[in-house]
């Protein structure tokens, strides 16, 4: 091949180069489509977000919002058996801004539920502060607002976090055996809680560092428009994340949230209810057994009164 040809479209060098770039472009699209098919089948997150997005004319009495703690921990099948037709819309890594978007879309296309439960992560959870961020999570954005351009070219760049689910699916039989029922992820995996308690009271600062009160307030305003009751609950977590606050959560300095019902399911009472050896699937997430126990408690203590 000549190295210093003149420049025009018929130049052999340029043609060969462009053909190879075209092949790489096609390969890029191909691997993106393969990836989309794989995560459509093996990512719980994507599966259930797609399912929730497809609802039209549904009339659930109770909808659950939140992140993976709520997705694993609230047994909507149990609640439905108890006469509360429920669906769990929570998914891994979702923040309140994304929950708000999901709810708005759901209310626009379906009958308003009687109750919306927003599962809050422990304010003492030692993890990277992802939840106060007001940006919509890419997974939900992709499913709800994705264009044709996104679907063809962007599955890998936009949904790259789902690759972890694929890896888990390949290497973990417990992950493969988990199933989604009415939006709840039911897993029989067990991992004991080996952390220790260090009960302290929550403060305004703790609360703000873990949550985005502005979006909780927006979710509440939206619920009020549709005459739906919003109940915020702090989800149970490993002992190290539990607090010493009362069941009714009142956070000084958060006046604009005073009208919202907020309940604390992450204090010492929960230590008595959840068995640290059998009821967790890891990192403060309840397994199938723990979720059923917790939901039963949630129902008797709270929901049956609404």
């Amino acid at each position: 091949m000549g190295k210093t040809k003149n420049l025009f479209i018929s130049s052999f060098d340029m043609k060969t180069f462009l053909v190879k770039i075209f092949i790489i472009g096609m390969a890029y699209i191909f691997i993106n489509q393969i990836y989309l098919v794989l995560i459509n089948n093996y990512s719980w997150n994507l599966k259930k977000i797609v399912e929730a997005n497809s609802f039209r004319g549904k009339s659930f009495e109770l909808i659950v919002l939140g992140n993976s703690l709520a997705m694993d921990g609230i047994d909507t099948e149990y609640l439905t058996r108890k006469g509360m037709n429920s669906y769990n819309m929570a998914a891994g890594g979702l923040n309140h801004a994304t929950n708000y978007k999901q709810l708005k879309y759901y209310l626009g296309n379906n009958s308003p539920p009687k109750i919306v439960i927003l599962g809050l992560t422990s304010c003492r959870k030692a993890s990277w502060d992802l939840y106060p961020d007001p940006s919509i999570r890419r997974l939900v954005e992709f499913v709800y607002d994705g264009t044709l351009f996104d679907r063809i070219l962007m599955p890998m760049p936009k949904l790259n976090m789902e690759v972890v689910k694929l890896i888990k699916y390949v290497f973990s039989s417990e992950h493969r055996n988990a199933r989604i029922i009415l939006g709840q992820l039911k897993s029989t995996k067990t991992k004991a809680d080996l952390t220790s308690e260090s009960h302290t009271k929550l403060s305004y600062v703790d609360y703000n560092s873990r949550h985005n009160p502005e979006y909780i307030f927006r979710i509440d305003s939206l619920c009020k428009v549709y005459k739906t009751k919003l109940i915020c609950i702090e989800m149970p977590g490993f002992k190290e994340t539990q607090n010493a606050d009362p069941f009714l959560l009142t956070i000084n300095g958060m006046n604009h949230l005073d009208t919202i019902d907020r309940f604390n399911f992450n204090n010492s009472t929960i230590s008595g209810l959840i068995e640290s050896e059998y009821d967790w699937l890891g990192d403060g997430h309840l397994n199938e057994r723990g979720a059923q126990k917790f939901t039963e408690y949630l129902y008797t203590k709270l929901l049956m009164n609404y």
Partner: protein
Amino acid sequence: MLFNSIEFAIFLPVVFILYWFVTNRNLKVQNILLVLASYVFYGWWDWRFLSLIIFSSIIDFIVGLGLSKTDQPQKRKALLYLSIFVNLGFLGFFKYFNFFAENFAQAFTLLGNPISLRSLNIVLPVGISFYTFQTLSYSIDVYRRKLEPTKDIVAFFAFVSFFPQLVAGPIERATNLLPQFFRKRTFEYDKAVDGMRQILWGLFKKTVIADNCAEYANLIFNNSNDYSGSTLFLGAIFFAFQIYGDFSGYSDIAIGTARLFGFNLMQNFAFPYFSRDIAEFWRRWHISLSTWFRDYLYIPLGGSRGGTWMKVRNIFIIFIISGFWHGANWTFVVWGLLNAIYFLPLLLLKQNRKNMGTVAAGKILPSLREFLSMSMTFLLTVFAWIFFRAESLTHAFSYISGIFSWALFTVPNLNINNNEKILGLVFILHFIIFIVLEWVQRHRYHGFAIGEVRIQIRWLAYLFFIMSILLFNGQNKEFIYFQF
């Protein structure tokens, strides 16, 4: 515009097509396209600061013309000083004003005469440290009569603002880059394909290696009081690879992009972590800046000629200024100082040019001696990087005292969740591939120069790296050197 953004993925093919298919018959028009494309590239970040680049280009162009018209030493010197004053003036104001204002105020307070100097809310224009040094090299070379001043204003503006290397180098010498704007460029298949490989390698280093290291390094450095000595040590190593992947990745993308347009930029990194001593490290790390300081500061100061005192003085000046170039903070000055201390014994014992070739050339593995030399050099640089990364000197010293405790001999603990552990294992796999490839390719121009490898393996490698970049990139998108 960031190299690792969707905007650049659209911008690059558009400019490429216009460059080779629309403007290719006229060199001047092609250069005008490069100037416009470069201004769009830079203006995407903040168009207001384009005025600085334009002003700096005009001044140095006029200085060049002025130098060509006079032989009077005083006039020539005045013109050179004008260029230095304008370029370093911009740099001094935007980068160092607040630093000096605060330090003057503190010094007066310590002397018992408290004064109040207002610090200004100054935004640092991206790339100012790079393009001011590049334009200065033109004025100095013309002054020294090493380069004929150009009368082609378009070519000169294109040289100052050439988008692949505008914001983070390599800092090109006018003697190398400027003449390339006067010659008709031809599309060379081999060069373009290797340029694409270098871009891919640069993106891998930036998005997979540096950005993932950044997440761990930020976590550890930002919460250094919560971590044990061994974790702090690991954090410093993460930062060492973050800064290497980030900056050398940028340089690879810049050099590869320039090659797509028929330009040759200088090599900026030559596998520096395989250096056997600090002198070799500085011949392999940020080569364009090191050689800039060597040619325009160190040698004019006397270099390594003269007595011992002169040598010591010059080494300290060059390293401290180099540190200060990186940022207006005492941490960078100490980083430079430390490197001077590392370098000095080699210079005084005349050992600084001992390791000139590739380590373990022609061998698969290094000898034990080479391995130990490389490890020691790497540890010295890691120690110095702590000052580079720390927020303040107090932070750096507390970080170092945290490392040197009994907890240094415990297992590091990052307190990460299950998903992060899985991603961590994938990262380790990528890191091993990265190190092995760098080692195997250490005698080459870049780590992914695989033109001689079998086609099937080459295409599998492309696929692997594209998928890794798309699926396992870290969250940190900005390039560290943008802030310098």
